[in-house]
């Protein structure tokens, strides 16, 4: 065999096949991928460092903005961690509402993913329909919290919003519609011949490999790794409202579709259960402003898998360190190994199969290099700009 020269294809940070900024280099032999590497950080905002300059309450608003899709997840993980640090118990009704929003968020996220994944497969009709239906849950989230994204449902020590009869009725009506539609989508992704050609047997990950690569969330469960934080280490209201683990054994793209769609049914069931049995009571507990030196971990099952926070307090009103690990970082390693031996054309599908979220992944620090700061604004300047803008003639 003669040695052939390696041909590298750079993809990104801006590329039609990617929805977010990341950079991959794939080496190919003909159409087959032989190696892959990734460069992240294009959406890195230095959030972990920024938390050290803000107090506990301010950080809630910062961390919720790590991700526009699973914002509630981040706010929730943070709140659970801070409450653990301070030893504060929150009222049962607040726990139920946190769980309710978390499941509604999962519904919106999985439907969003279904659309993106369908689009990557060249099935734009499915993309349009699933995003149309996703509006149902977006509207409900807006009715509940006032926001389509960054719901800001949490406060340290509880939640801000309550659910009344009327809203509960609207949510139940919305779920009835969504459930019907979800059966249809399950049918489409498991029977449509053209679609199955893009998913069945593509990007197969064995259970052993999934374990070794440390993948999380639906990506892991589609490869028969039984891992779900809601079940393994219940938080918020999940010890009362227990989800069934949705797994699959084939570990290919089809399995990842099936797992996520079936998880939607579980979310619908949990939301109905919460609305039927929600305990009466207060929405918040009192939180101290300063927290004694301590450390805590907090884990939450985001739509994409486990989110892990490490929090450290030092007795002041600001954290000493907050470390955020999002599921995409864990799952990225699997993409780099799964694409090897696959067709180049399947890369976008394999990538989208883990439901990557890069703003989650990256968290920019502006650096002071004496004098050269015209393009970089200080916090003070940005703040003043905001005050002038809103306080002025606008």
């Amino acid at each position, binding site marked *: 065999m003669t040695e052939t020269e390696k041909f590298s294809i750079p993809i990104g940070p801006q590329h039609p096949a990617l929805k977010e900024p990341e950079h991959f280099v794939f080496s190919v032999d003909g159409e087959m991928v032989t190696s892959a590497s990734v460069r992240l950080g294009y959406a890195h905002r*230095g959030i972990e460092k920024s938390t050290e300059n803000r107090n506990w309450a301010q950080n809630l608003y910062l961390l919720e903005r790590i991700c526009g899709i699973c914002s509630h997840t981040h706010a929730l993980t943070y709140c659970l961690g801070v409450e653990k640090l301070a030893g504060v118990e929150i009222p049962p009704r607040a726990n139920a509402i946190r769980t309710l929003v978390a499941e509604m968020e999962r519904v919106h996220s999985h439907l969003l993913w279904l659309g993106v994944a369908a689009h990557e497969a060249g099935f734009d009709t499915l993309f349009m329909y699933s995003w149309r239906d996703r509006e149902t849950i977006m509207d409900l989230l807006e009715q509940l919290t006032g926001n389509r994204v960054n719901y800001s449902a949490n406060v340290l020590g509880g939640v801000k919003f309550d659910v009344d009869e009327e809203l509960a009725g609207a949510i139940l009506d919305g779920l009835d519609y969504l459930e019907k539609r979800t059966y249809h989508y399950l049918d489409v992704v498991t029977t449509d011949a053209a679609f199955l050609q893009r998913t069945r047997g593509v990007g197969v990950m064995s259970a052993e490999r999934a374990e070794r690569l*440390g993948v999380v969330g639906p990506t892991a469960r589609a490869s028969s790794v039984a891992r779900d934080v809601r079940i393994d*280490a219940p938080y918020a209201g999940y010890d009362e409202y227990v989800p069934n683990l949705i797994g699959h054994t084939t570990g290919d793209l089809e399995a990842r579709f099936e797992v996520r769609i079936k998880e939607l049914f579980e979310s619908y069931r949990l939301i109905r259960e919460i609305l039927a049995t929600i305990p009466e009571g207060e929405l918040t507990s009192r939180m101290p402003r300063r927290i004694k030196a301590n450390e805590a*971990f907090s884990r939450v099952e985001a739509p994409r898998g*486990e989110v892990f926070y490490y929090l450290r307090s030092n007795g002041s009103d600001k954290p000493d360190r907050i470390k955020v690990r999002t599921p995409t*970082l*864990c799952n990225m*390693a699997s993409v780099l190994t799964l694409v090897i031996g696959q067709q180049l054309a399947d890369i976008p599908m394999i990538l989208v199969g883990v439901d990557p979220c890069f703003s989650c992944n990256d968290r*920019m620090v502006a650096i002071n290099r004496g004098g050269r700061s015209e393009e970089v604004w200080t916090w003070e300047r940005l703040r003043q700009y905001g005050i002038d803008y809103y306080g002025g003639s606008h």
Partner: protein
Amino acid sequence: MQTAERLQQARELLEPRALELVEPSTDRLDAEMSPDSLTAGVQALHDHRWGYLSTITGLDLGPDDGRLEVLYHFCSGGAIVTLRVKLPHEDPKVPTISKIIPSAVIFEQEIEEMLGIDVLDIPIKERLFLPDDWPDGVYPLRKDAQLEGDNE
């Protein structure tokens, strides 16, 4: 398996290799390790299929303590085992664990660029998150890093 059982199992695996074991709460076991015994500890957990590496956290313990710390978090069900390695502020070095757990590379790259911890024998030396024109020797997550916006 219950959380307590899992922790007990981890305790048995780590006892011969750790400097100190503590259980800060009912779902946690923290094992103080020396940089030299770290890989042995990771190997023991890995060989017995004890959970998975959830992430690696790098910390600057601040000027009073004068040290850096690296935490390796392993999760199994509801149990969390953390291997803790304390390092000097000057010339901190830890061995790579990526030979045992390949997916650890991404976390190791992160502690290298964010905290300036030298991960020995790491297979990828390139930057992961920081921009290409980021100055050498500035580690943003160190407490003494001079970054714009700090004066707030």
